């Protein structure tokens, strides 16, 4: 009996995983794409059910100290060719430039507005930017929980960026694939603000790519749905494809 208890304790010690380990493994599942070119559609739905469409092209480049991204707005037409170039800086303020095609102006913008609405959707910029696990702090072990017969790791993570719009996020990661499936994001006052659902994962060249994200704001009853219409990874993009020269 003592032996069984000892083995049980040993297995918990050996096989329990810290939240950060799980977050890192989950991030590794979606990392390694090198660079990507994606075309996406965003559906905005208000509390009355009225819908609006947004379309944008996303170009991304993985980097050691943060990813670089170029978002090209495609629809509505009046926003067409507006571009947002972002350099993620892990542990610091990102850098962002906005290109306004009507006046051919490249404008440096403050990147502190991470919590504001992105394209009038329920997504904030931090929701759609890199989900690098290093941007969050974790504590303790990852707890297993079962929902609708499926086992998940339940992680509680706190954004390191003081400009984040969230006080904490609870993310559920499936224990088989280590992919984030859904989560709950809490506002600065600690109230539940948004529920987020990640689905339609596709395995491309050994890298998992999420192709559908639904975010529901439980406070204003609005929701937004982001779907990937086209997605190409290891797209052969280089650092120069994310320099300011592309803003024209």
């Amino acid at each position, binding site marked *: 009996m003592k032996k069984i208890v000892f083995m049980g304790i040993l297995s918990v010690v050996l096989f329990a995983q810290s939240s950060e380990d799980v977050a890192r493994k989950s991030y590794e599942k979606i990392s390694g794409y090198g660079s990507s070119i994606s075309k996406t559609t965003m559906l*905005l739905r208000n509390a009355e059910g009225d819908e*609006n469409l947004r379309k944008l092209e996303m170009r991304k480049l993985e980097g050691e100290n943060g990813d670089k991204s170029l978002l090209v707005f495609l*629809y509505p037409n*009046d926003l067409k060719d507006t571009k947002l170039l972002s350099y993620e800086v892990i542990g610091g303020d990102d850098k962002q430039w906005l290109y306004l095609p009507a006046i051919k102006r490249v404008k440096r913008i403050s990147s502190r*507005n991470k919590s504001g609405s992105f394209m*009038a959707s329920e997504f904030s910029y931090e929701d759609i930017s890199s989900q690098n696990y290093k941007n969050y702090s974790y504590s303790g072990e990852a707890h297993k929980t079962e929902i609708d017969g499926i086992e998940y790791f339940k992680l509680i993570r706190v954004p390191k960026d003081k400009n984040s719009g969230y006080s904490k996020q609870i993310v559920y990661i499936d224990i088989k694939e280590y992919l984030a499936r859904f989560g709950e994001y809490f506002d600065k006052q600690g109230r539940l603000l948004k529920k987020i659902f990640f689905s339609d994962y596709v395995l491309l060249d050994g890298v998992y790519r999420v192709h559908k994200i639904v975010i529901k704001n439980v406070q204003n009853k609005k929701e937004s749905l982001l779907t990937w219409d086209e997605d190409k990874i290891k797209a052969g993009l280089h650092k120069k494809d994310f320099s*300011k020269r592309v803003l024209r």
Partner: protein
Amino acid sequence: MKIILFFILLTSSLIAYEHKFELGVDGMGYSKYANEMVANGNATLSFSNDFFQTDAKLEFLYSSEYKDRRYLLLNELYISREFDDYEVSIGKKIKYWGELEGYNVADIYNQKNYLKDPFDKNAKYGAIGADITRYFDENSLELGVKFYEDDIAYPQDLTPYSPFPISYDKKLELSNKCYTPTLYLNANLVNDEYFDNEIKMILLHGYDTKRNLILNSHFSLSQYAYRVNKALLLSHIIYSDTIFKTELSYTDILDYTPMSDYTQLSFGVEKSFYEISKTDMTLYAEYYRYIYADNTKVKNVDISEIYDNDLFLAMRINFNDVRSSELKLGVLQDLTKDERILKAEANSRVFDSFMLHGEYLHIVSNTANTLLSKFDNSSRFILGVKYTY
């Protein structure tokens, strides 16, 4: 015809094509002049193949009331090509050199389009030239040339857009030939060692975009273009969510003695506040100043400029709604003279492809013999819609 043939030749092997059309109708009301309905629009076309990219922009304006505010203009047509770290382009092009919001001391590549709107700093004519840019990671070095100085039209009718007391002749008078080139060197440097900042330094030799006004042989006013050496410095520094901006210029007049050498200074600060009742608000404060080397000579501010010892205060509210609704309020206050311009603008999208916009502009000028006094104390109202395809 030659331009069209040239264009067809360039695009004969195109492999990609993009376009964007904008068509607008504005009702414009004036407190001192006849009202007008204005149709305006533009077509932006972009072609590319394995060798180069061609961009073109066609603009039109049609006023129901003022004949001179009617034109069809190929405002941009240029080809460009990238070679690794280099990019070259040639043709008619609009560039933006500036940091500040209200007025740009350094935005001197293009002439302003006064027919379209003298109160819109982005209404500009394309300039014919060529440039080559070398990119070094975040930094770049551009060498460019403008080949030609074009005639500049003003409305001849009595309109809110014509400040001249006598007739105006659009034929440009020059200190040299209209084909005498203007050269510039533009260095863009990024530095984030101590502060997150960017600096742009521009050296220019050739025609100044500022002009004198002279009485020509037909007893009409003409613009007189003179050559200068000019040094420009633009910079911005980001600190927290505040952006500090500077635009400076020094101009040495080369071949026109009536005009004084001059320095222009401008400073600005932009501060954003996010999520105030779900809206974002940005505040702007800017200051513009001229300093003349010889106060006995002709000054730009006497003939064609209003931005001397002026303070610009503005606010932009972004409502973060699906209509991209936006409200902009601004005042330009002359700190020396009793002159100010107040402007309010609002935009909101309807049915995805239509943008509604409204504007109110009010000019207060209680000082005699200034440029603004030619417009008198007056107001302008605009209500319009723009369709984008």
